[in-house]
């Protein structure tokens, strides 16, 4: 899998920026950690793959990767039930000297 297939897009959301801020604040007490950033990743990507991809794409040091699988939401099209695709979210915590400029 190509690294650009692994990392689909950064998630620029209120929740994400809030978490990043909290993580940034926590850095002061735990200087070994940098900020945290959320991404949508390929559902079959593993944590090491994500870590590698992020490190290559953004040229940063990744401390940890947390992932969660999100279920698709049910949707109805006329009389048929369907759902939005399932997807994987990854929150990466960067090293103290790393930063990703998302916006």
């Amino acid at each position, binding site marked *: 899998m190509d690294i650009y297939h692994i990392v689909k897009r950064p998630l*620029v*959301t*209120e929740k994400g*920026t809030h978490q990043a801020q909290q993580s940034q604040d926590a850095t002061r007490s735990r200087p070994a950690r940098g900020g945290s950033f959320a991404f949508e990743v390929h559902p079959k990507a593993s944590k090491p793959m994500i870590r590698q991809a992020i490190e290559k794409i953004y040229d940063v040091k990744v401390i940890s990767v947390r992932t969660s699988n999100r279920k698709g939401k049910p949707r109805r099209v006329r009389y048929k039930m369907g759902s939005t695709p399932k997807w994987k979210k990854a929150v990466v915590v960067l090293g103290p000297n790393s930063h990703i400029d998302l*916006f």
Partner: protein
Amino acid sequence: MTDEKLAVEKAGGVEDDVSDATGADEATAVAEKETELTDEEKALAKLKEALEVEKEEVGPLHVKLTITIPRDTIDEELGEQFQDLKREAQVPGFRKGHAPLKLIEKRFGADVGSDSLTRLVSRGYLAAVEKLDVKPLGDPLICAMVTEKRTDDNGVEKSVKTERLVPVDRALEEMKLPSEGPLTFVCDVELKPEFELPELTKIPVKRPKVRITKKDVDLELKRMRMSSGRFQPVEGGKVEADDLLYADMKMSVDGEVVVTEDNFDLAARDLRVKGVPLIGFADAVVGKKVGDEFAFEAMVPDDHDNIDIRSKTAKFDFVLHEIKRLHVPPIDAEFLEGVGFDTEEELRTQLKLQMESRLESTVKRGMHAQIGEYLVEKTDFEVPEGVSRRQTDRAIQRRMIDMYTENVPQAEIDKKVDEMRAKVHDQATHDLKLFFVLEKIAEEQDIEVREEEINSAIASIAAMQGQRFDRIRDQFSKGGGLNTLYLRIRDDKILDKLLADAEVSETKGPKTKDPNTKEPKTKEPKTKEPKAKSPQPKGGKSGTDS
């Protein structure tokens, strides 16, 4: 102490506490108003302090301002804009008002930049003008890099950037807010002239001593009868002046036929046929009979539509077929009924009244003109070098309104306006001078025009033109004529006031003073001046474009 209180004291007999209370209320109101105004005013005052401006004289009453707005002011302005936007912006992934400022700046930076630029440039200009204490005339022109399309020697179209003076809107399209450093722009401004007003009392004015005589009424009555007359065929007679003729016409230049027309209708007087003035045609045609063939030669003017025949001699060949002569109705019961009167005496009285009121307004206008001349003569200043097109147009519009109120037919007005455009410059300079003088008088003497006055002026124009009030008002507001009308009414008020204080001396006037009363001979046989109480024109109209 407030004016109101002074007025109360003058009137006397009102208790002091009442007036004090009124004064206090008013003071609160004024304070409130001040706080309302402060935001914009504060910004302007702050900018006035912060900006740098250099003035360079380009010509008489013509300056170039180089305005520099420091970076701090730009950043402050941008910050304010972004803070405002942050509260309102809706960004996907964020609730309204919760998106980070950095993200907002990235997303809306360009739009906010152009908004801020507009505000900075317009405020910067106003602040600079205030700082230098100059009075600009009209909108400034701003120096900007404009993209122009030019064709080079090989016929290839290229976009070239050149520095030019352009109106503010256009300049803002081309300008960009600098990402670093101060904002500098150059304005080209025409200034209002500075001058002292002459003595405004005892202006010498001559009033011509004229009155409407029985002869004038006779002429007017004859004109009225002619306008309701009909053309009737003349059997076996000869052509007389002002007859209506039907003839086959052939126009040729250098032996080549240019136009032929059968049963062409024309009047037996000097007129214009196919764009060629036939001077002396009246004398040539008088005495001709039905069946006569005759020719007439005339010079084609050098502005004729047909370029090939310009400045050449045109030969007109006519074969006369029919002669019609105006039959003027006698003053009988039928005629009187047609114009809405019972007796000739009543009609004459009414005509005399109408003519007198027209004469009075003409005399008054004449005296106003004399005052205008006095004001222009006695005031010494130079009109701004490049008299802007706007001012010239305004002069033309004002003349148009003059003509509307003088009850001049629309066709005549259009013709006059075209003529005026050609040689308007001198007149515009004079009018501009008068405009500045009157504006200063209005400022000094606090003369203003109320909405009702404008409406009543429009109503009277509507009545005279026989159209609806709303329609005339719409026409005025569309063409920016309301402003011109406002100025006209204001000028009339000023001139009336000056006339009241003027030193009027009576002079001997010409025999017939009313400009609307002309010799019947010069009138067109079938047209009439639109006028209240006059009958509608009957019969066909002349086919010539005389």
